């Protein structure tokens, strides 16, 4: 029976696998691919767990890629799996009660699939233990990738782990996605197109006029010595007219298209920012702030410039080339052919040189950032540098970085300096060909001198544009890369989606929180497991545990910054996932460890959650938060500017402003995430007083490292490795002498040690 598992193609043809399948006595039940051998060398092999139909229990076969059987291990009843990882390598060990049977190794790339395999095996073995009949429907991982067996989340379309080659580099096609933003400006774009056509046409008129000017005015004059001033005047007027037309049309065209591209750029920026604001915290956690900032700021600008400048120029040039070709062919097809033939070759040459340069310039960029790194390392750390008298060392580091920069620059400049002369040379050679062939034709009287002049005028104008045309490739690539980075954000679906038909919360909100069997995994790591907890309205809960024990995660799940992986979170009996996010968050007041103040006045900052608040309300909140007095001491009172570019406040003062902020929105549920841990004890007391006002009559979840700050909590929840290990008030937990007792003792000891040292 092979049908119970679907092996990927490359394994199905493996002789050892086929041999295994032929032994009908066993049922292959689950498999996984591992990529390291016993010596931790890269080698792909397959692990297959099979259940034997005879009285044997189960066994695992390991089959090497090349088709030989690496080993077979009998799995006795009571065997279990262990999975651990260290420094990029995962170890899957199977143990029996008597000892270790075997360990297999893999790189962390396979971690999710190995975890899945372990779970499958564990379920299988436990079922075998109970000597139940196998029910593969139940065991079979319903949502796993067909190729690599990695679990696929329900909302994912495809597997995120396997086939890395599908992650193609940004394609130019991404740029077409921009059409969505250009669509509203269709009319302007069409107008711009017509104007481009006309203005380009107008620029091509002057060389055409030189033809009769030469043939009908200048050359007859040389023969007859009589100048036809009237005719010359008409042609000159034509030249002037064409020039002014080209000027006016060009102006209009550039203006219209710049207008449109600026608007597209703005739409792109605002839409991206709007979308970004609604993404979950999970997304922000995985991204660097600077990176997101450049994407929205610089990339949109780069795309905008590409559209309004590079793309437009290229388009105009192409139009010009086409029109020129048509005109030249209409005048003299043979000379036109000779004139136009070298063009592609010269364009390719220019592109080639430029391509070489591009990588050089990229290198210069990278080295430049290295120079910057030294600066951004040293200047903020100047106190440390001075304290350890390491000015010379930093100076040398800077000199070294600059020297490297110099080397790279020298190398690039060698090619770069030859670039402009090369282009000129190529242009001259092209012109030379036209001259030579033209003179030959003039000599044989097939063309007039005027025609040759016109050809030369057309083509020299064109060669001038060759360089900028050749740049379009790299400009397009850069813009495409930028567009991809923007659409990465725009196409990202929030992992905490707002429900389409939200359930309104029953008013007044009471603040009852229920968690049932809550589990949360971050990537492939289970952060919290099986948490069941009911919090009564108005109750104060203290969350206690080592860092990394899942306290903050629990709070984040209740606020729905993340969505639970298993189980549910309910507020007043309603699942948080069915409440509109904005309504849900209104119920929460939050005081965090690092209070964040936006640039603006103190009053604005306090009223952040409720911009419509009156001055009285703001003052009330500030008073309750013990902030009123220190605010009045500031020179501008409530109008003092704070935040990154504003007045600096102490940690305690900032914290009290953030408490006032939470008080003002009068939330039903209060989250205190290490609210007092970054300040000294005196300040802590002041904050604590403010917090006591805040806690009144609200369901409160307080996370605190210092256990002494949680004495007022009705119940303490002790978490360890994502699970609740103890629940009770301080006295109960102390007398139970469990995990809390140990934490408390450790802290008390520490405090005593410090007291003694002083």
């Amino acid at each position, binding site marked *: 029976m092979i049908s119970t598992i679907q092996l990927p193609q490359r394994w199905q043809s493996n002789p050892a696998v086929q041999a295994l399948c032929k032994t009908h006595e066993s049922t292959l039940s689950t498999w996984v691919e591992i990529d390291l051998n016993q*010596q*931790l*060398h*890269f080698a792909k092999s397959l692990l297959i767990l099979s259940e034997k139909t005879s009285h044997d229990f189960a066994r695992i076969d390991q089959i090497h890629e090349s088709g030989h059987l690496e080993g077979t291990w009998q799995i006795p009843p009571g065997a279990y799996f262990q999975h651990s990882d260290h*420094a*990029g*390598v995962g170890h899957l060990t199977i143990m029996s009660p008597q000892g270790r049977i075997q360990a297999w190794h893999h790189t962390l790339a396979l971690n999710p699939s190995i975890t899945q395999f372990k779970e499958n095996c564990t379920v299988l073995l436990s079922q075998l233990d109970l000597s139940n009949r196998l029910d593969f429907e139940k065991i079979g991982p319903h949502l796993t990738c067909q190729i690599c067996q990695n679990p696929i989340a329900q909302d994912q379309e495809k597997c995120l782990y396997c086939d890395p080659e599908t992650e193609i*580099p940004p394609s130019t096609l991404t740029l077409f996605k921009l059409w969505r933003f250009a669509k509203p400006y269709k009319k302007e774009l069409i107008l711009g197109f017509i104007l481009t056509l006309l203005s380009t046409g107008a620029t091509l008129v002057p060389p055409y006029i030189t033809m009769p000017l030469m043939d009908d005015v200048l050359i007859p004059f040389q023969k007859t010595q009589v100048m036809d001033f009237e005719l010359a005047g008409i042609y000159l007027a034509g030249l002037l007219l064409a020039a002014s037309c080209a000027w006016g049309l060009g102006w209009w065209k550039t203006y219209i298209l710049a207008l449109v591209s600026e608007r597209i750029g703005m739409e792109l920026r605002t839409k991206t920012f709007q979308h970004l604001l609604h993404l979950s915290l999970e997304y922000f956690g995985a991204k660097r702030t600077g990176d997101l900032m450049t994407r929205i700021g610089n990339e949109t600008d780069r795309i905008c410039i590409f559209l309004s400048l590079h793309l437009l120029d290229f388009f105009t040039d192409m139009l010009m080339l086409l029109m020129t070709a048509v005109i030249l062919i209409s005048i003299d097809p043979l000379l036109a052919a000779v004139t136009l033939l070298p063009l592609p070759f010269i364009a390719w040459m220019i592109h080639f040189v430029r391509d070489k340069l591009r990588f050089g310039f990229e*290198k210069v960029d990278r080295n430049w950032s290295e120079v910057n790194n030294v600066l951004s390392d040293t200047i903020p750390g100047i106190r440390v540098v001075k304290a350890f008298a390491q000015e010379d060392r930093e100076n040398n580091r800077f000199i070294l970085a600059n020297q490297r920069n110099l080397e790279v620059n020298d190398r690039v400049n060698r090619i770069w300096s030859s670039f402009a002369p090369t282009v000129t040379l190529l242009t001259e050679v092209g012109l030379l060909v036209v001259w030579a062939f033209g003179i030959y034709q003039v000599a044989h009287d097939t063309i007039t001198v005027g025609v040759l002049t016109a050809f030369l005028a057309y083509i020299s104008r064109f060669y001038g544009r060759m360089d900028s045309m050749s740049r379009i490739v790299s400009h397009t690539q850069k813009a495409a890369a930028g567009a991809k980075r923007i659409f990465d954000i725009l196409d990202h679906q929030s992992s905490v989606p707002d429900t389409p038909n939200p359930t309104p919360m029953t008013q007044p909100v009471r603040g009852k929180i229920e968690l049932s069997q809550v589990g949360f995994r971050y990537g492939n790591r289970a952060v919290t497991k099986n948490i069941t907890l009911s919090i009564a309205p108005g109750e104060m809960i203290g969350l206690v545990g080592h860092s990394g024990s899942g306290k903050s995660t629990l709070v984040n799940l209740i606020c729905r910054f993340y969505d639970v992986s298993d189980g549910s979170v309910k507020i007043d009996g309603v699942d948080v996932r069915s409440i509109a996010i904005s309504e849900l968050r209104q119920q929460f007041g939050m005081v965090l460890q690092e209070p964040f103040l936006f640039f603006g006045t103190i009053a604005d900052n306090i009223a952040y959650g409720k911009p419509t608040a009156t001055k009285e309300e703001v003052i009330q909140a500030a008073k309750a938060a013990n902030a009123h007095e220190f605010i009045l001491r500031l020179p501008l009172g409530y109008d003092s500017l704070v935040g990154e570019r504003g007045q600096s406040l102490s940690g305690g003062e900032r914290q009290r402003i953030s408490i006032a902020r939470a008080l003002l929105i009068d939330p039903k549920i209060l989250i205190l995430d290490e609210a007092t841990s970054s300040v000294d004890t005196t300040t802590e007391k002041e904050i604590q007083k403010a917090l006591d006002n805040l806690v009144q009559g609200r369901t409160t979840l307080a996370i605190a490292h210092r256990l002494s700050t949680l004495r007022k909590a009705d119940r303490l929840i002790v978490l360890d490795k994502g699970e609740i290990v103890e629940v009770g008030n301080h006295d109960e937990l102390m007398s139970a002498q469990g995990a809390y007792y140990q934490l408390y003792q450790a802290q008390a000891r520490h405090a005593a040690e410090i007291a003694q040292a002083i």
Partner: protein
Amino acid sequence: MMINFNLTKDQFGAISLIDAQGIVHPNIRIIRAFPISNPSHGFAIVDHNGHELVWLNDLSQLPDSLKELIQTELSFFEFIPEIEKIVHLNTFALPSIWDVHTNRGKTRLKLKSEQDIRRVSEEDLLITDANGIQYLIRNKKNLDKFSKKILDRFM
């Protein structure tokens, strides 16, 4: 150097340390202090909570049985493949997928960002791939021309 401890490995694969006082510390781990810059010097034996039990400057003084046990255990946990040759890459744009030969066999790595190539010393480079596996390039000057060229484009 006084050897006043002993190591034993049980049938579950766990190693215990018996110290001079005869106290058994189960589930110990052996760690190299400078895995890249000086792998043959500086070893720590820590208990399951990460507290150091024994510090060894080098293994040369140890009896052979202990030395072998430590070396087997280290080889079991250490994984910094050294890239010997870059054979192929799909694109110079990022993310880029490289086929490489390492001292642990052929493999394929995915480079997410140029910043994942870091200098650990003047000549040695550490490359972190998309899965967090760290590859070492010892003395990049010894690489062949093609590998050097590829590397150069990303640095």
